[in-house]
Structure formats: C-alpha cells, structure tokens
C-alpha cells in the first residue's frame, strides 16, 4: 500500500502549536511527503530536533525521534548515525540551532561528512522566545533585541556548509513547496552530509517587524527574493544583498565519515584517493 504523509504524523499530537501562516507546517508537510514517497518505514527514520518553534516538530511525527538540547541536534545525530549507519537520520533545526548556538557542530558535521540530512528552517529570527535576532538575521533588520536594526550581518547558511565541505547543499523556500519536497528527497538519498535550507516566514515576528504580518504577503516576499543560483552568481553585490540563491548549490560525491573510517581502519584506503575535496 502506498504510504501517505499522514503515516509519518502523530495524530494525537495535532493540531500543532505553530502560528497561522507559519512556514514550519509547510516544511513538516514536505518532510513527511518526502518520507512517504521514499517509502521509508517510520521505524527506520530518526527525526532529530533542537529547540525553538521548529524544534517542536519531533512531537508531531511518528518516526523514531530525538528531541535534544538547543543547538546540539547534529552532535546527537552524529552519534546516532555512526552507531547505526542503517538508520535514516534527519535533523530538523532552526537558524538558531544550526548556525548560531550550534554553529560549531554544523561546520564540523559538514566537514566530517556525516551521512545524514539537515533541514534547516531559516526564518531569520528566534520565534519561540519572542522574535530576537539570530546569526542569520539580515543586517539592519528589526527584531525585539535590535529595535533600531541589527548591527551584525547574517550568515549565508548554504555557503557556510559549502565552505565546510558538505556533499549536498540546496536552498529553497516554503513558497516553492513542490521543489522543497523534491529537494528533501534528493538530500535524503544523497550520501554524506546534505543540507536543505528552507527560507520560511515567521509572520508573527520577523514578518511583522520587517516585511508584513500577512502570511500571503510573506509568501510573495519569498517568491520575489528567491533567484536561481546561476542567476544569483551573476548579480551585482547590491542585487545579491536584496536576494538569495535557490536551487542546488553543491552536489558532490565525497565519501562519508563512516565509510572512510571503516576503510582507513581496515587499512584499505589508498593514499592517492585524497579527501574528495581535491586535497
């Protein structure tokens, strides 16, 4: 029998706690749709979350789940995946979890090339605690802890992962819901560390302070900001500042940590193979 996304949701925990028009629900739908299309049994999938609005996602899924501490989802997931490489491990992190408090684990998971998938919901602020700025909040944006605009530039999550060595790096938005589902599928299938960054609206805080409180307007804002990665690369710096790249940014076949560890410790690795990064 064909599986439905509903087979990956825990009905007793729904409806979810997210605000009307929050992108988190759209990403959870895409994630569960992807699992259904890949026909992965819930028992073989471990959903690992951190803390924040998106960090609540584990409570709504019927897969195996690990709801850890803030920022550490990738470190827990590293242990889970390495201890049992047969499991499909997917971490769901917000911008706070992934690249702010957990930034160290993020770059090292990418560098190590742990064979798991990170779905990073980037809504440019800390929704759960009331809309404070994070390490992805764009320069000058207003948040509850930057009432006059934030004085720090934000990280580009995808370029950070690329620089750290991730095997698969893609970005999309919740506006592009079909592409989102397909990229998650591709990321799960791709060996090594794979990242899907999803730009997502927090209409309640970031939207209200910087764009518009209406979910529909936030969705259209995402559409206007997103440009295909090729086009983005040709843009001027000023244009780039107003946009973000969507699509597949990195696709490479560097062997994952566990495979390499097994081969090196079994004495089988050939010196000339290098590390897959040209080194």
């Amino acid at each position, binding site marked *: 029998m064909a599986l439905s996304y509903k087979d990956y949701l*825990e009905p007793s*925990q729904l409806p979810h706690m997210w605000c009307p028009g929050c992108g988190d629900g759209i990403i959870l739908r895409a994630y569960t749709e992807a699992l259904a299309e890949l026909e992965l049994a*819930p*028992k*073989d999938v*471990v959903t*690992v979350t951190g*803390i924040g609005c998106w960090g*609540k996602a*584990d*409570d709504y899924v*019927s*897969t*195996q*789940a*690990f*709801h*850890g*501490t803030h920022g*550490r989802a990738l*470190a*827990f*997931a*590293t*242990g*889970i*995946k*390495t*201890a*049992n490489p*047969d*499991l499909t491990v997917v971490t769901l992190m917000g911008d706070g979890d992934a690249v702010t408090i957990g930034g*160290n*684990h993020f770059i*090292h998971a990418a560098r190590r090339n742990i064979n798991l998938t990170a779905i990073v919901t980037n809504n440019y602020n800390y929704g759960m605690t009331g809309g404070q700025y994070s390490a992805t909040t764009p320069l000058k944006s207003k948040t509850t802890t930057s009432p006059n605009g934030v004085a720090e530039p934000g990280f580009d999550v995808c370029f950070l992962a690329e620089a750290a060595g991730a095997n698969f790096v893609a970005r999309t938005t919740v506006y592009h819901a079909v592409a989102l589902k397909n990229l998650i599928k591709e990321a799960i299938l791709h060996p090594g560390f794979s990242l899907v960054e999803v730009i997502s609206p927090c209409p309640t805080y970031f939207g209200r302070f910087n764009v518009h409180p209406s979910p529909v307007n936030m969705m259209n804002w995402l559409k206007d900001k997103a440009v295909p990665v090729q086009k983005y690369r040709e843009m001027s710096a000023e244009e780039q500042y107003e946009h973000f790249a969507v699509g597949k940014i990195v696709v490479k076949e560097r062997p994952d940590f*566990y495979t390499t*560890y097994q081969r090196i*410790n*079994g004495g089988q690795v050939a010196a000339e193979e290098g590390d897959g990064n040209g080194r």
Partner: protein
Amino acid sequence: MNRPVGVQFMQGNEACVYAALDAGAKFYGGYPITPSSEIAELSAKFLPQVDGVYLQMEDEIGSIAAIIGASAAGKKAYTATSGPGFSLMQENLGMAVYAEVPVVLINVMRNGPSTGLATRPAQGDVMQARWGTHGDHPIIALSPASVQECYDLTLRAFNLSEKYRIPVILLSDEVIGHMRESLTIPERDQLEIVNRKLPDVPVAGYKPYQTGEDDIPAIPPYGTEYIVHVSSSCHDESGYSHSAPQTADKLVSRLHRKIEKNKQDIVQVEWFGPEQADLTLIAYGAVSRVAKQAVVNAQAQGLSVNLLRLITIWPFADDEVQAALAKAKAVLVPELNLGQVVREVERLNTFGTPIHALSRIDGEILLPAQIMEKIKEVLK
C-alpha cells in the same frame, strides 16, 4: 586486539579503557584534555579493532551529545574529560538523566577553577558531579582509589548505567589516572556484564517511558519495530512532550525514586583499620590512599584512628557516614578541595560529633604527615 588477562602493570587511565571495552563499549565521543587524554588515545587505537568507533568531536558539548546519540542507537558509549570539559558537558548530562540514556563519563579531576593547573590533581568536581547540571536530578558517581579500581569501577559504571538508565560518572583524579601499579584483569567469562533491559510488550501501543514497579523503563535502541521518542523536554510515558504539572512531578519523582530505592545496590564503601576508633577519617580517591597510610602510622603511635573510604560518592553513603558519626568521638575529612564531601558529612551529623576538614588546593596531594599532624591536633 589482545585482551590483557591476569596480573598486569598499567596506568589508571589505561585500565579505564580496558574495562570499557570489556563492558562492551563500542563508541567513544570525546575531546582530548589533560590529564585524561590517554583514555582518548587508547580508545582510538582499540575501538576500530572491536568494530567500534572513536569519534573526536569538536568540543565537549558535542562529545557528550554524540555518546548520548550513540547510546540511544544501541551502542554502549563513553567519554573522558577533565574539569573544563566536564563543565561544558553539564547541560547534556542533565539531558541524559532526564531522557534516561545510559552513558559513562570519566572525569579525571584536575586543579581548577578554570584552566587552573592542568597537570595537577584535585577533587574539586565532587559537587559539580552532583549539581553541575540544572534542575533536580539524581546522579551516580564512583571514585576509584587504585588502578585496580579504575578497571573495576569503570566496568561497574557501565553496569549501573545500563541497569538504571542513568549517566554514571567515574570521578577519577590526576594521581589515580596517571599512577602505574599492578592490577588483576579477570578472565572474560568471570566478568559480570549488565545490559539494559528490552521491552517485552506488544509493539502497538508501546510507551517507552512506561515503567513497572522497578521504575526503570525498558527502551530498545532505534531501529527495532518499537518507536522510541526521546526528549529533553518534559515528557509523559509516550516520550512525547507533555507540560502538565503532574507530568513534570511524576517524571522527576520517578527518576529520583529509581536511584533512591536502590542505594543498597549502588552505594559501596570500605572500612579500614579498627572497627571502633576515637577518630574516623572519611576520604575518597587519591586522598584515601594517603589516609590509609595515616591510619597505619597513627596506630603505630598508639592513636585510635580508622577510615571510611567512599567508593560511591553519589548517591551519598548516608547510612554508612551516619554509622561513623554515631561511633566515633570525632570525624576528619581530608580532601583536595576547600570542603565538599565534608558538607555532606555535616548534613548528616545528628549526633553532635565534632567534624574537622583538612583541605589542600595547591595542586599537590595531601601527604600522610599532613594528615597525621591534623589527627594529632584533633585527638589532643
């Protein structure tokens, strides 16, 4: 790997690794730190030989997270660290207690606070082991006083951790960790190995945190037919978040109960010297070795002194310490800190027994003569 058997000569830190492997550990996640690094190095060497994995994480926060994840996925997992790294592990130590994930932390204590004297011994983490992570929680901590005990208590740490589904801390110290002496490693079939219990209920409707009378949940690793939901948030028996006041009360109360009611199984002490003495020393770890020598020296000088050595530090040996307080005319607690265990002894003193502390915090070990001097002062 060649498993050493019988009488061996090695370092305390080395003995910890052999015990971990004998316990069945297959995963090490850690960050090197003096004076514990030998544990990382030997683990890196041996784990691949037993189909295990050594993972050097980016920091100690990631280290403890990785071993918690590996344990949830079914591998016995451990880490080793010292003061600064132990501090970084505190948040996730609480997660392991709360989510009931068995892991073993070896803390080879060094002088602090902060970076302190990295290569020098101390016993300054006794209270951090107990209360370092936030919130009300139980914990188990064991304190080896010999290379033999580095082996025995590391093995026991895994067993207690698996049995009670709680992180267990081996509170070693720089002296014990780096000391070389002989020990006896039993034949493999002489070892008592405890593995976490698995559920025997139907998969449908399984609740990982539902417990029977023993208050200990039966949780399988990820990947079986059972769905396991592990959470750092307040959770009910299903493992899913649940924030009702009675859920929070029920969970934390059970976590305490499962340790409290098994103190007889967990708490170990050793009495040394005459059964009845005017003065009882209460000591643990490296200092307890010195205290033993002081007891011998005192007896030779006609002084009536014995020793209560704490092998289990947490949960605290309330009954045994109270027995000491009831019998002795005075109690002396020598330790390499400004008085951590002595406060627990004071808490238990319903007898009006005079309690004395002897502290040393300069990164040097207390000497028998120093303890002797204090004994004479107390017994004067």
